């Protein structure tokens, strides 16, 4: 199972390119940033459409409120800052002025998770998916690579309602086709298999692709699903796959509490209980280090996916 790779880029650059495309396509798209325009790759939009770009300064709560207010005149605001400051810092503003008020705000969050790297735990938010998926009316999207982040950025402008779009900093291989269609809420089945279903999001999709080679070598047939939309979750895709494989591994760059794995287990426990293993950060903060060092240390790396698959398959034989 060879995956065509279209180069290496960071997902945040996919957001920047998608936003630039939207700037040309849709005059209703406006963008706000809290002093991280370069980090979020929003410069192209800012340069091309200065009248539609709003610099909020280091004042994220105000930025979310501004964005909510901007929807009232019919605009589609995209806010950009680090994931930590896009969620935990402004949870109440999002809750009241965006989610409860059903405002058409797109909260775009970079530098999510451990792969933010050297800045350390103050900036490495690992709880954001959980916070955002708990909010009614909120759509939560975690695209897997550069191309998919660009496609998702463009797609969410056409979706009416609040969206949380999560992406990151490290340069990673691009494997989603440049012309792929992004459909919110529809999972991408990347490989078909019979022994185990791996459900991954974000950077962990590539880590899972790497794991496929090793699994194949030891005779394990894995079905890999890129679950780019955490909410609404594609339960049909999960059940279809698990009906065939009988066990699941979820893989995410997020806390085990509240993340993709929990969302999946909610579907399984109610509709089709099977063994599930989690590749996720387990109730701990991160620390400084390179992105790849951190993924290894906190057990969200390729070998962790392989080990989790073995555990899940072993549990299938236990009759309860």
């Amino acid at each position, binding site marked *: 199972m060879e995956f065509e790779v279209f180069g290496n880029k960071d997902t945040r650059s996919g957001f920047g390119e998608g936003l630039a495309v939207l700037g040309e396509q849709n005059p209703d798209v406006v963008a706000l940033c809290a002093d991280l325009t370069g980090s979020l790759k929003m410069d192209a939009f800012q340069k091309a459409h200065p009248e*539609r770009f709003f610099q909020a300064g280091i*004042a994220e709560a*105000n930025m979310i*409120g*501004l964005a909510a*207010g901007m929807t009232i005149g019919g605009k589609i605001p995209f806010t950009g800052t680090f994931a930590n400051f896009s969620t935990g810092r402004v949870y109440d503003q999002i809750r009241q*002025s965006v989610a*409860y008020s*059903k405002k058409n705000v797109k909260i775009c969050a970079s530098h999510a998770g451990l792969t933010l790297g050297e800045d350390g735990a103050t900036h490495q938010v690992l709880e954001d998916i959980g916070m955002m998926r708990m909010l009614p009316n909120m759509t939560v999207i975690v695209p897997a690579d550069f191309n998919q982040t660009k496609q998702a950025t463009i797609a969410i402008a056409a979706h009416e309602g609040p969206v949380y779009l999560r992406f990151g900093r490290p340069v990673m291989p691009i494997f989603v086709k440049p012309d792929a269609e992004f459909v919110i809420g529809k999972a991408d089945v990347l490989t078909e298999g019979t022994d185990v279903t791996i459900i991954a999001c974000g950077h962990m999709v590539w880590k899972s692709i790497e794991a496929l080679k090793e699994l194949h070598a030891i005779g394990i047939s894995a079905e890999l699903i890129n679950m780019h939309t955490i909410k609404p979750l594609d339960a049909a895709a999960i059940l279809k796959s698990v009906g065939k494989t009988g066990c699941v591994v979820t893989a995410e760059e997020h806390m085990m509490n509240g993340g993709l794995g929990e969302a999946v287990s909610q579907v399984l426990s109610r509709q089709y209980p099977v063994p599930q293993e989690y590749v996720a950060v387990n109730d701990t903060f991160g620390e400084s280090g390179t992105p790849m060092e951190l993924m290894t240390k906190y057990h969200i790396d390729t070998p962790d996916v392989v080990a989790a698959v073995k555990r899940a398959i072993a549990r299938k034989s236990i009759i309860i």
Partner: protein
Amino acid sequence: MENTALAGIASQVRRDIVRMVSAVNSGHPGGSLGCTDFLTYLYFEQMQHNAADFQMDGKNEDLFFLSNGHISPVWYSVLARAGYFPAAELSTFRKLGARLQGHPSTDKNLPGIRMASGSLGQGLSVGLGAAQIKKLNQDSTLVYTLHGDGELQEGQIWEAAMYAAANKVDNIIATIDANGRQIDGDVDEVLSLGDLHQKWVSFGWEVLHMDGHDFDSIRSTMQQAKAMTGKGKPVVIIMKTEMGQGVDYMMGSHKWHGVAPNAEQLQVALDQLAETLGDY
């Protein structure tokens, strides 16, 4: 509109407020009564707005955002009396399934409301966002916001205040309900705002003052504020009010911030407020 006509509407609104909160034994009469004259003036004289055909996008009409959402009773009454929805619906306030939620929301599509509020400090940011889009849309109408003085203890207000001046958002008029009270006591005792006038001046705003219970003062100040828009600076009005205004036993203290009158107390209140437009 004649002051006597405004006063008549305000008296009915005050009756609505005390009846609404008393009926469900909850809600916030104090601040509601204090802001009654202002909101009556705003909706019946100052703003260009279309009560008969409420549009969320509010294009080409003035917008109002209530940042201190707990004074929902006064807003609901003024909206109903201005024609946004039938006054009879005021009887559903805070009841299960009602469009008149405890704090304002867009959740149940109540005409007149464009943003949920209740968690304090958010309405100035929202108003500024709406105001900036009015400019982008070349819409010359204005944005009005109302805030409690206690609410100014929230940091987001000052983020927004800084942003407004830096970006020359000059199509917004914010009003502060300066009643000097909050839940735990006097604002000066709980957490003093210091020199509020100088704070807004130093944040780059035009600052006006008015008596929130004198329609002449409200009218002349609001007209002056409107004349100051479009000149590169945001405008704030520090409005002196009395919490509980119009009901003698509710005035002079913070105690009626969030307490509803019982049946006996309600009757005492109603005896002080003329029924002018017919009770709902």
